[in-house]
C-alpha cells in the first residue's frame, strides 16, 4: 500500500519506519493502560535506533568506498564496542571489559582471519565488514550470556564454593561446574538457531540476498555456512 504513495528509496523507507513506530507506540500505550510504564524506554529507544542506524548507514557509505585495510580497523572498533556492551551485563565482576574484549576478539577475530585466509569470506570491504559484524555481534551475545550466567552461578553458591575452598580444593576445581554451566547456557540460543534454521526462521542474510536478486539456493548455502 505504501508503494502507491511513495516512490522507492529513502521516502519509502521512512514511511515504513513510521508505520512500525506507530505500532511500537501503540504497544507502549497499551502497557501504560495496564499500569506498566515503558514510555521513556520506548521513546528513547526508538529515537536512538533511528538516529544510530541512519548515522551508521551514512558512515558505511563512506567506509565501503575506502581501501580494504580499513575493514580491519572497523572490525577492531566493533570488537571494542561489543566488549563494552557485554561487560555491562557482568557488573560486579572485576576486569569484565578486558575479559569480554579478549573473549570476543579471540572468538570472532581468529575466525574472521582464518575464513578470510581460506577465501570463505571475501576480502572486499563490502563483504568483510557486514559478515564480520554478524560474527562479532553473536560472539558478544554469547559472551554476555556466559558472564551473566557465571556471575549468577557463583554469587548464588558462595557457601558451597567457600566450603570447597576451606576443604582444600583448588579454586579452578571448585568453580569448574559454574564455568561449564555458563558456557552451555550461553550456547543455547545458537543451538536453537541451528535446530530451527529453515523451519522456524529464515536468516536475514538469506532474505536480503533473495530480495537483492540472488539465486535462492546460493543464498541458502551462504547462510548455512555463516
Amino acid at each position: 500500500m505504501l508503494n502507491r504513495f511513495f516512490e522507492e528509496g529513502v521516502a519509502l523507507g521512512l514511511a515504513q519506519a513510521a508505520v512500525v513506530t506507530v505500532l511500537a507506540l501503540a504497544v507502549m500505550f497499551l502497557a501504560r493502560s495496564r499500569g506498566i510504564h515503558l514510555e521513556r524506554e520506548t521513546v528513547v529507544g526508538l529515537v536512538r535506533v533511528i538516529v544510530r542506524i541512519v548515522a551508521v548507514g551514512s558512515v558505511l557509505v563512506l567506509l565501503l568506498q575506502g581501501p580494504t585495510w580499513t575493514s580491519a580497523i572497523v572490525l577492531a572498533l566493533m570488537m571494542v564496542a561489543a566488549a563494552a556492551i557485554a561487560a555491562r551485563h557482568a557488573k560486579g565482576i572485576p576486569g569484565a571489559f578486558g575479559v569480554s574484549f579478549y573473549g570476543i576478539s579471540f572468538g570472532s577475530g581468529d575466525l574472521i582471519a582464518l575464513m578470510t585466509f581460506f577465501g570463505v569470506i571475501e576480502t572486499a570491504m563490502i563483504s568483510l565488514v557486514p559478515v564480520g559484524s554478524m560474527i562479532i555481534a553473536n560472539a558478544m551475545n554469547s559472551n554476555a550470556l556466559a558472564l551473566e550466567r557465571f556471575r549468577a552461578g557463583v554469587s548464588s553458591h558462595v557457601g558451597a564454593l567457600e566450603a570447597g575452598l576451606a576443604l582444600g580444593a583448588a579454586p579452578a576445581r571448585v568453580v569448574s561446574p559454574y564455568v561449564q554451566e555458563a558456557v552451555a547456557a550461553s550456547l543455547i540460543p545458537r543451538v536453537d538457531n541451528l535446530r530451527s534454521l529453515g523451519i522456524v526462521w529464515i536468516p536475514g542474510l538469506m532474505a536480503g540476498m533473495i530480495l537483492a536478486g540472488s539465486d535462492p539456493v546460493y543464498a541458502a548455502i551462504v547462510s548455512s555456512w555463516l
Partner: protein
Amino acid sequence: MIFASSGLASVVSTLLIRSHTFSKAEQLVLRQSPRES
C-alpha cells in the same frame, strides 16, 4: 561460523573470568550484591 565464534568467545571469557573470581590468597572475590539478596 557464528556457532564456532560464539563458542570460542564463551569458553575464553569464562576461563579468563575464573581467575578474577578469586584473590591471590584463593578467597572468593565475587559475591552476591545486596540488591540480589
